[in-house]
């Protein structure tokens, strides 16, 4: 038996499929509406379920009468999730008082409104940091406290002593509001259980392989009898790792009724209980020498993660500072818990750090690009910053060390920021490649495509291996019954699944070569797979078409498994951002004209999909920077922005010219995820560009017109 050779990615110059622009294999399905998302699943005798969510955060329930809902035509199921006398502790899943299921969504809504639910509202609602920090307020957070110190780093005394020696010292506060994930597809599941001991659970989830066990528990079935399916998904961004109360409730209703149940959160419920990115308030004291060295930094950051702890990446963020101290606290409020969200904690830390760096640069009179490079050790950032500066037109830009004036004209500004992401991956993912005698080939793994395009490389890696076209391979993903793959969090999807796919393709090729090499008078390992043919390396006259080779398999398909191989993946993403804006110094209108982002991510499997991810990350940051903010009334406790009219996200008119660059100077021939670094620095770069344009420094996101106009009034 020949020793198995190690799979290896081909050098970039030899690739015929990968590292090119590959249109999504499911693109036509998606744009024609043929792709079925969880929301779209319709099953015989299916019922629609809805929660009754109380909008006020803190309650003592005095009456929970769900029976009237059963009198509503079409309602088939009601259940109280809480009883009179029980408390509601926070706005979110804990405020789900009851659930109803009905023949139609409309009947379910009517059923909810028929219920009689009364409660004493506890004051204050505890929806703001001020309320949480007020000493007289009730203690509602973890460990019976409203404030928890989460992290301390560095020597505060030494950093303060160093601050005394600096030439320029700046002390400022920076804040960011709570941001929502705004997945186009809300959270939820469709549970297909019709009696017996098996079930299929369609669910919008980032962790298909890891979900059948929890779904089975809720269904009181064995895990091997439950198949979880996420063939298509409308986004997750970190908010969809478990089936949640919405999934487990759907399972229980299905079990009780013996009928399929459709329970997707309404948009309003999604805002109330679907998770969020924690807000942040940071006080940073930074000091620099007049030659532009970051000498000292003392930073204190509060995280506003509702009932959760929130996330914060730590300060200083990336830049080298000689002496620093960092402390972070969680401030608890009676609002929905923060969840992981695309680069958790990084966009918050980046905004504070990049603003402070920019302020110090202008204060010492060194242009912000040079100042940044002076305080960055990693040469990758130098080349990346230079590249985005070139693309944005920094050389020709007049405002290098002084911002533009508020002079009644429209002023243009440029700003910079950087980012990093680990993109670590781990063992465990598997893939099966199966070649049919008729020439079809499938690549099967339990990974999921959140909308990122991962399905396409599941096929493309195999096509590359056999010299085929992407369309010759069928990618099968998104079922827990498929070979295990990792949950999609922390940019691990590609780093975990692509090596397993490559390994499976490699193993399948070796097994296939062992079968057909004799037909070409060649040795296994001495065959070339190219252009839909397999050719003898020694004698190029001897070849088989792909179909002829497959036919040689006889009546049985050839199947090979692959698993994660550490050497096929790498980690560590750098990113650099530039943004160009225009400000009308009369009306305060801020328009982002152009955004440029570059990142390195090893071997790019699909350049089109990768750029699409970079575009998306930049847009998410732009939207956070310009518009997004969750708003509560502090007295009424109501979330005032629980819809997409009042919670504003960027639309087409907000999108600037976008340049998304893959850093081809990165020579790592290994793969990694790449979807987080690009959503980290955009809002900071835009805020810096605003300052560069007109001298207005805004330290509180979003950069909405009201703040810009008031700031400009103060300056003019």
């Amino acid at each position, binding site marked *: 038996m020949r020793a198995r050779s190690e799979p290896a990615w081909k050098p970039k110059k030899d690739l015929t499929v990968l590292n090119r622009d590959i249109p999504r294999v499911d693109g036509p399905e998606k744009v024609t509406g043929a792709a079925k998302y969880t929301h779209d699943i319709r099953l015989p005798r299916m019922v629609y379920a809805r929660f009754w969510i109380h*909008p*006020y955060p803190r309650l003592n329930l005095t009456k929970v009468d769900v029976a009237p809902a059963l009198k509503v035509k079409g309602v088939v199921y009601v259940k109280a999730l809480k009883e009179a006398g029980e408390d509601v502790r926070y706005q979110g899943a804990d405020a789900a008082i009851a659930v109803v299921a009905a023949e139609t969504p409309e009947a379910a809504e009517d059923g909810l*409104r028929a219920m009689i639910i009364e409660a004493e509202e506890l004051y204050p609602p505890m929806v703001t940091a001020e309320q949480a920090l007020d000493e007289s307020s009730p203690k509602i957070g973890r460990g019976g406290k409203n404030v928890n110190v989460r992290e301390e780093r560095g020597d505060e005394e030494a950093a303060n002593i160093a601050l005394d020696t600096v030439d320029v010292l700046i002390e400022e506060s920076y804040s960011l509001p709570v941001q929502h994930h705004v997945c186009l597809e809300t959270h939820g599941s469709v549970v297909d259980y019709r009696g017996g001991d098996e079930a299929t659970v369609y669910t919008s989830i980032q962790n298909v392989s890891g979900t059948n066990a929890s779904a089975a528990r809720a269904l009181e079935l064995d895990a091997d009898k439950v198949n979880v399916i996420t063939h298509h998904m409308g986004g997750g961004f970190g908010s969809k790792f478990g089936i949640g109360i919405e999934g487990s409730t759907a399972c229980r209703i299905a079990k009780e009724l013996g009928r399929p149940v459709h329970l997707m959160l309404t948009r309003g419920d999604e805002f109330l209980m679907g998770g969020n990115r924690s807000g942040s308030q940071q006080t940073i004291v930074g000091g620099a020498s007049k030659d532009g060295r970051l000498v000292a930094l003392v930073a204190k950051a509060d995280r506003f993660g509702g009932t959760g702890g929130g996330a914060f990446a730590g300060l200083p963020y990336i830049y080298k500072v000689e002496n620093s101290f960092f402390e972070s606290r969680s401030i608890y409020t009676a609002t929905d818990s923060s969840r992981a969200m695309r680069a958790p904690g990084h966009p918050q830390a980046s905004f504070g750090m990049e603003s402070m760096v920019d302020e110090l640069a202008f204060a010492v009179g060194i242009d912000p690009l040079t100042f940044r490079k002076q305080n960055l050790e990693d040469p990758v950032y130098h080349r990346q910053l230079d590249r985005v500066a070139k693309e944005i037109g920094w050389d020709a830009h007049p405002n290098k060390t002084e911002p533009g004036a508020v002079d009644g004209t429209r002023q243009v500004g440029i700003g910079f920021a950087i980012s990093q992401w680990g993109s670590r991956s781990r063992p465990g993912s598997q893939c099966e490649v199966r070649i049919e005698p008729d020439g079809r080939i499938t690549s099967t793994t339990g990974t999921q495509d959140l909308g990122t395009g991962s399905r396409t490389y599941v096929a493309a890696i195999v096509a590359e291996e056999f010299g085929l076209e992407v369309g010759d391979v069928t990618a099968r993903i998104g079922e827990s019954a498929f070979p295990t793959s990792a949950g999609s969090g922390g940019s691990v999807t590609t780093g975990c699944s692509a090596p397993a796919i490559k390994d499976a393709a490699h193993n399948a090729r070796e097994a296939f070569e062992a079968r057909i090499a004799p037909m070409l008078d060649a040795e296994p390992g001495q065959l070339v797979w190219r252009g839909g043919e397999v050719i003898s390396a020694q004698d190029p006259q001897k070849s088989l078409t792909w179909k002829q080779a497959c036919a040689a398999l006889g009546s049985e398909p050839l199947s090979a498994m692959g698993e994660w191989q550490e050497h096929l993946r790498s980690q560590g993403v750098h990113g650099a951002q530039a943004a160009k804006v225009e400000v*009308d110094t*009369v*009306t*305060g*209108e801020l*328009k982002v004209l152009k955004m440029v982002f570059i990142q390195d991510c090893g071997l790019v499997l699909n350049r089109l999909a990768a750029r699409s991810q970079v575009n998306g990350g930049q847009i998410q940051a732009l939207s956070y920077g*310009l*518009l997004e903010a969750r*708003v509560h*009334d*502090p*007295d*009424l406790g*109501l979330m*005032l*922005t*629980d819809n997409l*009219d*009042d919670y*504003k996200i*960027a*639309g*087409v*008119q*907000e999108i600037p010219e976008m340049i998304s660059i893959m850093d081809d100077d990165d020579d790592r021939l290994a793969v990694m995820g790449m979807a987080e670094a690009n959503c980290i620095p955009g809002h900071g770069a835009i805020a810096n560009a605003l300052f560069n344009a007109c001298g207005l420094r805004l330290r509180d996101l979003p950069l*909405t*017109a*009201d*703040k810009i*106009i*008031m700031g*400009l*009034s103060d300056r003019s």
Partner: protein
Amino acid sequence: MKAFELQNPVTLAEAARLLPTKEGDESARLLAGGQDLLTELKHHLVEPDRIVNLKHVPGLDAIEWGADGGLTIGALVTLQDLAEDERVRRELPILAEAAESVGSPQIRAMGTVGGNLNQRPRCWYYRNEHAVCLKKGGTECFAYEGRNKYNAILGGGPSYIVHPSDLAPALVALGAQLMLASPDGQRQVAAEDFFTLPSEGNVLRETVLAPNEILARIVVPPPASGMKSTYLKFQERSSYDFALSAVAVCIWMDGKKVKEVRMVLGAVAPKPWRVKRAEALLAGRELDADALKAVGEEALRGAEPLAENGYKVPLTKGLIVRALQKLS
């Protein structure tokens, strides 16, 4: 939403007869494009037993020019049709610009001129079913001491909503007349008198429209020759949004000097806010820097910002400058 009976009258009189006669009777609502009504129904802000659909009444979807150059716009004309009308764009750009600034293409394709003028406020509290505010029969305007970034700086009290219509300031500036049909016939009301302040009329409504009246047509009189006009709207989000502030201006110049100007502010008050003293101040003057500054000061005189909407004062002044610069 609550189930309702859909009624499809085929004449204006029949439609008007289907509407309630008593103030406060909420049993029926009029449907045109449905862009506002549907959201109100879905959020249970209104729960009528009957919806009176105006779409089967013929003749209300026409844009007609009189021999004298006057314009009659049927209440069912869509915002898109108004915005795309070549002659409107040429002769009354203020109106085309206002129509084009509304919502998104989808909303403009469905939304009507009549519906735009009769839409309800966008205040966060009004739109939240759980906040029983003054506008919904409660006792308090929560915006006054609550979150009020989008609320009124002029003409507020006891409610501090702003009127959300983009067409309204433009039509007031144009001196338009509104034709209101009722079971008893028709009456004509100047656009300027159609909208009411909360302190003037019924705080639950924004117009003088009686419960059984229907806005049928809008008549824009022929403008005196030489008119230039514009509607300048400032949106927090360009893609689609309601105004943070807007300025509607019709101006007649005599050389470099202003002969006459009509100026109406939008999204700063519970009704379109005509600034007659600012108009008077400009008459006979050149639009130099001093005049632009003075007119802004005068237009915003008396503004009483709430905690979070003080920006509307400098914003509106800036828009006035930009609008006049554009027309001069």
